[in-house]
């Protein structure tokens, strides 16, 4: 990973291969955010030629380090107007890293609005006309690409939503079975890929080898210890493989933090019908899989395969946020309907969180009733068909709420909140409000006790504790996002000091470094500083680090909770 591929689109598409220069030592989110901060004018239009799309595997991707296959995509977001890093699993990060690229940077704009396919292999780079793929969904696109480029390749693509440059559009990444099920979902990155003139990217690492560590023995020993730690932990070794992330539905509901009917209630009576436990039982009983990895090298295997009553493949196992968004947030308790909408999102190329939140807003506006399964599917189909209504819905919850005259738009910086109500779980509300990414549950995800001693420094009885925790969690998450490691490694790292040490040893062994916890903190702070400085340049102020006012006014049952963290406290999050 010692080079960057820069594609300049314009009247005549060109490309160049560059040395890393100032970007040396960075990967994943660190690299995407540094490039956007350094090279993109913050006031540019997100789908204008001045914006750039940066695709970067993590620092450890392409190696034999466990769970290192996360891919980061960065740009100025069409949804938020600020910086965006959206990441996904799938095979692309591993293949791109083995091809030796630390990043692909797409610049300029599509000549005459045409779409191309970018083909990268060991021999070089080709930019070919994608005319035959135009208008196809992700599944049909990948099917045609496989016919041309084969099965030992990773594909990235956009669906019809991306082609229409909708702000909720995603970039699909193929999984191990070459299905376009892994998405850089958040922030409208699919629209930026279309604006740069690309329908698909073909990544072929034939003839390339696994990235070699600088200190092979130390790396091998650390990897073994790291994998053992992941497998023995109750979350990463048992709960996630057995039930997937949707195992959260029951417990978040029980705690009263499960947003229902467009964030109007905190509990859903039929949660047992759509929970991860029920989903896993159903999948297994139908002949699907409840345990499956999203990329090679994953040892957690939190995904699965959702099949219909006849045992036919429908989609990958919908994740917690997807089940919630298309389910209880819309008053829907039908797993088959939720799986169908997940499939539609993947095919059209849409963020499932944004679309579920948007349909709930539309339901509140009276376009159909909460709980109306066919009504929800019809609204989603409108987006896929590109109708006028569909284009409004495909622009996200904030735009839909404005169009239909609804105050209750659960968004921060224009991006829909995920599946945790910030009134019940105030600490995550702090992260929703302050992350440069817009409302994002993964922005403050990494459990950083061992890195930052959060537990020891925080008085749980003082509200300031939530500010400090959110800050430290955001710093640690940004650093992990740079490595390409799945965030689910956070749990064994939290509880098992030997696994945290193995994680540090793994990175040090690979790069021949002597990195310490202080270095991790410094990297995380740098990333957040680049992101916040970009947003400042784009016109964001502290007043954008706020939740919508109704979260301070409308009580959430059963705790009658309001979001009580003050604006002054929120302003302290990045005061380091």
């Amino acid at each position, binding site marked *: 990973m010692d080079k960057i591929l820069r594609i300049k689109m314009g009247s005549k598409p060109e490309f160049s291969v560059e040395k890393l220069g100032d970007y040396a030592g960075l990967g994943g989110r660190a690299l995407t955010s540094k490039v956007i901060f350094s090279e993109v004018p913050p006031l540019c239009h997100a789908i204008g030629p001045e914006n750039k799309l940066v695709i970067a595997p993590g620092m450890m991707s392409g190696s034999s380090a466990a769970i290192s296959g996360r891919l980061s995509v960065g740009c100025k977001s069409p949804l938020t107007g600020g910086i965006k890093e959206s990441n996904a699993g799938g095979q692309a990060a591993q293949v791109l890293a083995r091809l030796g690229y630390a990043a692909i940077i797409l610049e300029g704009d599509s000549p005459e609005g045409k779409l191309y396919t970018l083909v990268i292999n060991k021999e070089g780079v080709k930019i070919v006309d994608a005319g035959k793929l135009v208008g196809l969904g992700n599944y049909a696109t990948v099917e045609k690409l496989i016919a041309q480029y084969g099965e030992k390749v990773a594909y990235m693509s956009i669906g019809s939503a991306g082609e229409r440059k909708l702000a909720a559009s995603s970039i699909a990444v193929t999984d191990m079975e070459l299905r376009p099920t892994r998405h850089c979902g958040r922030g409208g990155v699919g629209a930026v890929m279309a604006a740069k003139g690309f329908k698909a990217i073909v990544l072929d690492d034939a003839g390339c080898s696994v990235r070699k560590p600088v200190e092979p023995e130390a790396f091998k020993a650390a990897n073994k210890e790291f994998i053992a730690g992941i497998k023995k*932990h109750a979350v990463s070794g048992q*709960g996630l493989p057995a039930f997937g992330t949707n195992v959260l539905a029951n417990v978040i509901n029980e705690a009263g933090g499960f947003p229902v009917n467009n964030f109007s209630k905190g509990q859903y009576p039929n949660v047992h019908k759509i929970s991860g436990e029920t989903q896993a039982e159903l999948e297994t009983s139908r002949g699907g899989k409840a345990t499956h990895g999203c990329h090679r090298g994953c040892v957690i295997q939190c995904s699965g395969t959702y099949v219909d009553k006849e045992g036919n493949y429908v989609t990958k196992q919908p994740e917690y946020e997807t089940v919630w968004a298309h389910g209880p947030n819309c008053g829907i308790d039908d797993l088959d309907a939720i799986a169908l909408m997940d499939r539609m999102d993947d095919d059209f190329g849409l963020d499932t969180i944004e679309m579920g939140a948007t349909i709930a807003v539309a339901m509140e506006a009276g376009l159909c009733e909460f709980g109306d399964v066919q009504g929800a599917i019809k609204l989603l189909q409108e987006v896929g068909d590109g109708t006028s209504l569909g284009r409004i819905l495909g622009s996200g919850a904030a735009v839909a709420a404005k169009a239909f005259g609804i105050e209750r738009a659960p968004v921060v910086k224009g991006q829909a909140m995920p599946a945790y109500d910030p009134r019940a779980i105030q600490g995550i509300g702090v992260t929703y409000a302050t992350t440069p990414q817009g409302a994002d549950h993964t922005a403050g995800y990494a459990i950083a006790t061992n890195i930052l001693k959060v537990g020891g420094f925080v008085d749980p009885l003082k509200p300031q504790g939530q500010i400090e925790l959110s800050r430290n969690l955001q710093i640690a998450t940004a650093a992990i996002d740079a490595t390409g490691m799945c965030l689910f490694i956070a749990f064994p790292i939290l509880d098992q000091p030997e696994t945290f040490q193995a994680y540090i040893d793994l990175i040090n062994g690979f790069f021949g470094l002597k990195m310490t916890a202080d270095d991790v903190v410094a990297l995380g702070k740098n990333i957040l500083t680049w992101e916040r400085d970009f947003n400042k340049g784009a016109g964001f102020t502290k007043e954008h680090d706020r939740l919508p006012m109704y979260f301070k006014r409308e009580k959430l049952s059963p705790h009658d909770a309001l979001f009580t963290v003050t604006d002054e406290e929120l302003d302290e999050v990045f005061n380091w």
Partner: protein
Amino acid sequence: MQFVESNSSDGVQLSMNLQRGVFIGFLPGETVTAFILRVLSLCEESMKREVQTLILNNGCVDEPDARTLVSGDTLVLSGAMPGLVGAMLRSNSPIKAMRQTLSASVYRTDPLVPESMIRLKLFNTVLTDHKDDLLKVGFYLEGDEV
């Protein structure tokens, strides 16, 4: 209300019943800890390892030894949960400050629960690992769950 002490329903239905909650008796003065040890046939060490998330009447429980069960309580027993919020919800989580609102139970008794009983819900690995223990002890289903 139907008494259940053997697995007569299919796996998906039994799983959903145990997630929705079943009625089960508790002993006079029994603490949350004592109830868990008795019903799930666990020792204290195993309980700490296997039952890492405890929710009583919609509030997180950090001191199960200190809370005595009363009629109409709803008790949730779960393995460790993923995600930031899952980590917050764990008993005595190092980041429990982030769930202050949830650290107190909602004061209410479930009117559907018979006297000297609680509603018990099992989630995650506690559901799969201990449903047979619960079947041995026996429990009641609400009328419409049979």
